[in-house]
Every structure is written in C-alpha cells, then in structure tokens.
C-alpha cells in the first residue's frame, strides 16, 4: 500500500554542540507537534523520551548535527545525524552504565550511561550506524499501533 509511507509531518531541527542552554528544546517541540496531531499519549511520551536522550547525546558528545521528525500514518520516526566524532563500539556504548561522560556532564545530571539503552527500550525499531571520524546516524521508530484503514 502506498498510503503506509505517506508523510504526515516533517520537521528538521539543527543541533548545536555543547549548547546546554537550549538542550532539550527540540524534544519539547516534538512533543507539542505530536500532541497537536492528536496522537496517543503513550506514543507521544515514548517519542519524547527517545528524542530527549538523543538530543542530549548530540549536545553533550557530538560536533553538532540535526534531528528530523517524520510522522507517517502508522509510525513516528526520529532521525538523529551528527558530524562526529562517531562511536567506536556501538554494543559497548549501548550497555546500561557504560559512559564516557566527563565529570562536568555527570554533575549536570547526565552521563549515567543509560541514554542509548533507554532510547532502544522506548522504540519499536532502532538502528545505529556510526563511523569514527565521520559521524553517527540513529533511526528510532515508534509504531502508532494498528495502521490507519
């Protein structure tokens, strides 16, 4: 069916590295967009949490990039892509408690090593690709449930 891939909404948000004043705002925008579409609160919550974790990771560790929100009829997709530094061992980085966070990030309440794991747990489909020196792309998909008829 062609309808299944119809894009209902597309938003692109740039992310600046180390911008701690703004960090988290994209997630609040995403939440409001999804609420405005009348989506199920559980879907909105999961998408918002995934977005928040991804956004914080990009702000804290990446050299900047962008977050793309795609709402399709049966799913919410959030794409995170950054310009580096890349993740050498994705399996290791995904494990709860593993963190490369510097002390300043921990003192801000981040860097407990739960981020990627929490993103994965709140997503129905989750994929990370990364190349050291180039960047990381994460695609998180939350299924809306029974597809629209």
């Amino acid at each position, binding site marked *: 069916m062609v309808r299944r891939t119809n894009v209902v909404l597309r938003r692109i948000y740039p992310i600046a590295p180390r911008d*701690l004043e703004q960090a*988290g705002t994209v997630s609040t925008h995403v939440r409001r967009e999804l609420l405005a579409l009348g989506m199920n609160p559980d879907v909105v919550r999961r998408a918002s949490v995934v977005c928040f974790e991804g956004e914080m990771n990009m702000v804290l560790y990446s050299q900047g990039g962008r977050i793309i929100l795609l709402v399709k009829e049966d799913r919410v997709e959030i794409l995170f892509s950054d310009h580096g530094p890349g993740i050498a061992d994705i399996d290791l980085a995904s494990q709860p408690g593993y963190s490369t966070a510097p002390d300043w990030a921990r003192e801000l*309440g*981040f860097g407990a090593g739960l981020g990627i*794991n929490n993103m994965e747990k709140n997503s129905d489909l989750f994929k990370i690709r990364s190349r050291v020196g180039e960047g990381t792309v994460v695609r998180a998909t939350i299924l809306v449930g029974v597809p629209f008829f």
Partner: protein
Amino acid sequence: MKLRDIAELLDAQFITGEDQADREVTSAFAADLLSDVLAMVKDEGVLLITGMTTPQVVRVAEVMNMGAVLFVRGKLPTASTVAYASGTGIPLLATRRIMFETCGALYQGGLDPARRKHFPVDHGTPDERGS
C-alpha cells in the same frame, strides 16, 4: 497529595504556579540524574524532587508530563527557566531542606513512590549482562 500540603509540610515556596496549589500529584520520584528520570518514571502527574536547577529539568518534566517540580537544598532555577516553566503550566516549588528529609517527610505523609516503566529495566552492569 496536594501541592499546598506539600508546601506546608516542607516549608516550601511556590516559584511559579501558586494558582495551582490545589493540584494533586500522584506519586514522587527523587533524583538528580535526569537520565534516571527519563528511564524510570511511568506515571503521569508525578512530583519530581531534584537538586538540579538546569533548564533541562523543566523540559524533562514537560516531556514526561509530570505534575510539579520540587527543588531541594535551597537551590533556585534562573529567571529564564522559571519563565519557561510558567509557559508550560508546570508548577515549581523550592525548599531549603535536603533531599533526604524531603523524601522522608513526604513518604511519612503518605505520598507513594512513582511506579516504574512497564518494560523490564536491565540493572546489570556491562559485564553482568550476558546472564
């Protein structure tokens, strides 16, 4: 428990949202680490007890649909964070008490701990995970 009762129990002040003093919070969650809040809280309308006063605290409270934020240890958020919270409608309170006493008094006052998420959270450290 109503925010009004919480404020009274802890000598807490409303920083914003005093007009919602009759709002009920369902349960409470205490942490400074926001990753823990994002990973753990399932309920809505939860009272977040924290010593962190960064703008991210209010944004996390917003995306998690929390009932109110209670800052402990006498720390106050910046004016821009307060203004942002006013816009979201999430009440902010502050007490000079430490987090331990705050939790103790609210727990004794009958406020329940927030329930965990429905998925099983892996508490294992990386090296224990294979089991």
